[in-house]
């Protein structure tokens, strides 16, 4: 079985977000970049399924060279090889076109990625890629098992979950608890250095959206403290002052 796992390179969840160049660029100064947490779940399950089925796993990133430490980490976790599409992604559509183009050449059985990237939070790349390839997609997938050509999926729906079976090929957006995050071991880190990482140039895409500028939320006002002994008065304040009850 051929598995493709797409990863994003995003600021750590604890990062303070600021912008530079007149609010047109993310300030990367002092920001730690990581594999997207949801993508990390997808990767972990992908590695388990590759081992179970005796298949191969390729990791794909659409982005610039500064993501290579994260790509090497994915190789250390268990991917066999990696592809980086050398471009700063313009938007979800651009990224999806790049992934679909690689997928068309390689005919993967299973394409996994996170339910959304934690930088732009769109959650649309899996659907775009699947539609471009003319195959089915599901998200957010919390459980994934494969037997032959049949896949059993548990996915979160509003207020619960749905279990379904479907046939490969598929594109899936993943989230916990699909697998435990994997931490690379020393042997993995050593072998990752020599695993192939192919850099390809992007295919051209019509410009759908053009970023204008970034902004930050207005600062929060002070927190009004209520003594524990008068806790009951809070309800009245919520009703008459905050007007949320």
């Amino acid at each position, binding site marked *: 079985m051929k598995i493709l796992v797409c990863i994003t390179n995003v*600021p750590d969840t604890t990062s303070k*977000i600021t912008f530079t160049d007149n609010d047109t660029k993310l300030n990367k100064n002092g920001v730690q970049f990581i594999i997207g*947490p*949801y993508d990390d779940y997808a990767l972990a399950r992908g590695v388990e399924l590759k081992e179970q089925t005796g298949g191969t796993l390729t990791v794909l990133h659409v982005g610039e060279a500064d993501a290579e430490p994260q790509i090497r980490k994915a190789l250390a976790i268990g991917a066999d090889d990696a592809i980086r599409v050398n471009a700063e992604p313009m*938007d*979800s*559509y651009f990224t999806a076109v790049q992934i679909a183009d690689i997928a068309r050449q390689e005919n993967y059985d299973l394409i996994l990625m996170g*339910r*959304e990237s*934690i*930088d*732009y*939070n*769109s959650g*649309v*790349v*899996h*659907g*775009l890629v699947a*539609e471009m390839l003319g195959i*089915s*997609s599901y998200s957010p997938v*919390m459980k994934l098992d494969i037997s032959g050509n049949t896949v*059993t999926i548990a996915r*979160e*729906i*509003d*207020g*619960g*979950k*749905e*279990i*379904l*079976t*479907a046939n490969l090929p598929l594109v899936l957006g993943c989230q916990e608890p699909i697998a435990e995050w994997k931490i690379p071991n020393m042997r993995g880190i050593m072998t990752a250095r020599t695993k192939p990482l192919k850099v390809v140039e992007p295919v051209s895409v*019509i410009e759908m*959206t*053009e*970023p*204008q*500028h*970034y*902004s*930050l*939320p207005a600062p*929060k*006002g002070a*927190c009004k*403290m*209520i*003594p*524990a002994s008068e*806790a009951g*008065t809070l309800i*009245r304040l*919520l*009703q008459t002052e*905050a007007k*949320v*009850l």
Partner: protein
Amino acid sequence: MSVLIYIELDNGSIKKTSLETVAYGAKVAAQTGGQAIVLAIGKSDSDELEKAGDFGAEKVLHASDEKLSHENSMAYADILVQAAESTQSKIIILPKSGLGDAMAARAAAKLKAGIVSGVTALPETEGGFKVTRSIFTGKAFSTVEIKSDIKILVVKKNAIELDESSVGTVKATVETFSPQLRDADFQATVVEVEKASGEVSLTEAQVIVSGGRGMKGPENWQPLVDLANALGAATGCSKPVSDLDWRPHHEHIGQTGIKVAPNLYIACGISGAIQHLAGVNGSKCIVVINKDPEAPFFKAADYGIVGDVFEILPKLTEAARAIK
């Protein structure tokens, strides 16, 4: 030029978040000089669907078929595209949800449309079509211009204030919409659906009472549930709590769980790690109850009480029952 608005149904009723989407879409239609047309998929009836008129929709297209009873983004997106084509809509608006995003994505690929998900305010339509959306899980915003002919917007909860003043006065015309369904979209077999029945869903809830590790164990949840019941609220929890299996995973609120945007979020015994804040920063008002006055959550709160959560919760429940 019409604006097509997709609404989600829950047991035949229009979801509250989807009423906001209707109101949003109607404003965009007014801005761009078009008609606001709604698409509903699944079982419902005209009495319910004509309520979309309360928030500015002129017409509701209703597609209903036994095959459409399960959330199926492939089939639903096909229907959305057929509806967009038959109404010649150039702007398509959906509510932000797993289904909304999946449908929007598929429709964007089919229609070669620019797509922006997580929109937080009405677009600017003078000198280009510009929208602002939430990024970095609520920590920032990005404004983008959509340049494609067809534009797809996936709108977050609270992007627009719902004006209920005209409720019950204007009825939308409801028309049956009979799309062509493709067998390829119905390959999957739904084996089982587990839905927490009778509970208020977190994404729809106006009030949420949420517990963290400070609740000290699953056996201590009753006072929190009592307050939630008194307020008609949904219950949620922090990641450690769902990791410890004190509460089910679908209650986990945060960066890697559900993102919520209620009017009121009451956090009990949650310290307020940045990953949890990322899931609640869309809330209008945040109350934090914690025994540690240094808990970081107080910095993000509107109201705070320092003290023992097990003493405070019953007092709040009593006060809440008194106002209902």
